[in-house]
């Protein structure tokens, strides 16, 4: 268990280094005066007076060798000293605080919704393999998996917001704005988790320990409750670890396409606008959300499966 947490901590560090390095390089290769840009990123647009830039150049040690500058850059990153947006001038950390809430709501709602949809369909499919429910579930899963999330989001928007007029097409505030983006992500996640659940149930039903539980004389309800559920849940939960990738990527895409004001939306905007401090801040936040979700899945897996607790 401790080993998992340590691995995730290392992963968080790698995320910071990768994001920080790319942004450091980015800051210096973009055409134009790096000192001006960095000065603005550090102290806000108030420092954007030509004379001040020269002062900043010395103060920041831009004349120093780049490894020194790089280490300093990373040190600031690790201290969450993320600087100011080049576009709005506001401190990046303040903008992130607002967006983080929106994105976390979205991710949590999507995950919860997918856990309500996916395993339910999987159980219905798995109880009668090759029955009509199973075939329908498979067809739905294959179809959904071939739809990129941005298309799925647009389709849902057309159907629920424009044709039916039930939900607002974009924005943030109440559950009504949350519904479309979270449903988009949840359907994509459920497309896979329903099949994983189905396979898990089929595997458990064929497992020798499941047969033995019956042969012991246990009533069917006790067999399923005591020996079926936990064992079937193990692969479903551990698969969530892989799905965390889909979730984080999906948050970026769906927020952008449905104009949901979260971190993913901000990241894409920052890239288009070359707002490097914002790119760095948002990418770091998304990366850390990814690490946190994976760590949560690790913990849940270890709680379910004693074999993983060995270490």
């Amino acid at each position: 268990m401790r080993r998992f947490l340590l691995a995730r901590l290392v992963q968080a560090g790698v995320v910071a280094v990768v994001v920080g390095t790319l942004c450091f390089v980015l800051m210096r290769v973009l055409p134009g005066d790096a000192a001006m840009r960095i000065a603005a990123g550090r102290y806000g647009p108030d420092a954007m007076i030509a004379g001040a830039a020269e002062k900043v150049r010395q103060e920041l040690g831009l004349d120093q060798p780049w490894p020194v500058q790089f280490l300093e850059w990373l040190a600031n990153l690790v201290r969450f000293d993320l600087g100011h947006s080049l576009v709005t001038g506001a401190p990046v950390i303040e903008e992130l605080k607002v967006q983080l809430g929106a994105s976390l709501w979205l991710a949590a709602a999507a995950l919860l919704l997918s856990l309500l949809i996916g395993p339910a369909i999987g159980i219905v499919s798995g109880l009668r393999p090759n029955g009509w429910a199973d075939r329908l579930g498979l067809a739905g899963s294959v179809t959904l998996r071939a739809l990129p999330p941005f298309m799925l989001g647009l389709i849902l928007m057309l159907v629920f917001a424009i044709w039916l007029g039930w939900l607002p097409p974009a924005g943030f505030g109440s559950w009504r704005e949350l519904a479309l983006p979270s449903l988009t992500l949840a359907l994509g996640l459920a497309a896979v988790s329903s099949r994983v659940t189905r396979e898990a149930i089929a595997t458990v039903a064929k497992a020798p320990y499941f047969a033995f539980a019956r042969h012991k004389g246990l009533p069917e309800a006790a067999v399923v409750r005591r020996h079926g559920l936990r064992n079937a849940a193990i692969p479903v939960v551990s698969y969530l670890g892989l799905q965390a990738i889909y979730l984080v990527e999906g948050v970026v895409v769906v927020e952008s396409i449905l104009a949901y004001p979260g971190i993913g939306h901000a990241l894409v905007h920052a890239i288009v606008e070359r707002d490097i401090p914002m790119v760095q801040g948002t990418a770091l936040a998304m990366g850390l959300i990814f690490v946190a979700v994976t760590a949560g899945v690790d913990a849940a897996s270890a709680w379910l499966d004693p074999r993983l607790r060995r270490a």
Partner: protein
Amino acid sequence: MSIETAFPSADRPRRLSARTIGAALLLALAAFAILGPWLIEADPARQDLGASLAPIGGAYLLGADHYGRSLLARLAHGARLSFGMAFLTMMTAALPGIFFGLVAAWRGGWIERMFELLANIVLALPGLMLVLLLLAFAPGNFGPLYLGLALTLWVEFYRVTRATTATILKQPHIEAAKLLGFGPGYILRNHVVPVIAPLIATLAAFAMATAIIAISTLSAISVGLQPPTPELGSMIVELLPYYAEAPVHVLLPAVLIFLLVLALQLVAQRETR
């Protein structure tokens, strides 16, 4: 339901037929992507504002978009772009991935640890994030998109090749082959390749599907390829405001993406146990 007959489930002969359907679909789409731009003489960039949103079946076989550009030509060029780029990315990811995997499994030691570290660094972030960060260098350009995708996709080829090869190399028949005097080349050709080849084929199809999804998605959120490039994802977004007047026009590029990804995923399907 027609879908139900098209994608039936688990039992063997039917799953094979789902694969066959996928292969046939893929072949048809590949033909459209390769031959289409060559056979269709219309220029995908030529505007004819008089023919804005021309209906299907008129002067333009599949209609024209809001600038009056031939949709058929744009779809064919879009398919070629998606397909070609996905193929190129897949190859760029697969060749080093497989090679590194074989080397790591065969040699072990510090070489393997180095590749593992590299793979773990790439995997620390979701692939799309890495592509986005690289795109920040030159939004709307082909280079960083291609590089970013290849950089994230090689890992899967590497990991599967390494793990499978390592398992094979531990088996007694490898030791037996060495004792019988067979060299590494023979063992690679006759003992390793037959086992990993089908896995690699599956991965290749999945990698292409991933690349196609990523390219269209990034273009749709306007950080990938930019208009007027006939890219399927950005075509959808460009045409979306006109969906009330010309709903099928919006649908066409979307269906093309869907079919491309579907075909690749059906081809990638393998009999599970």
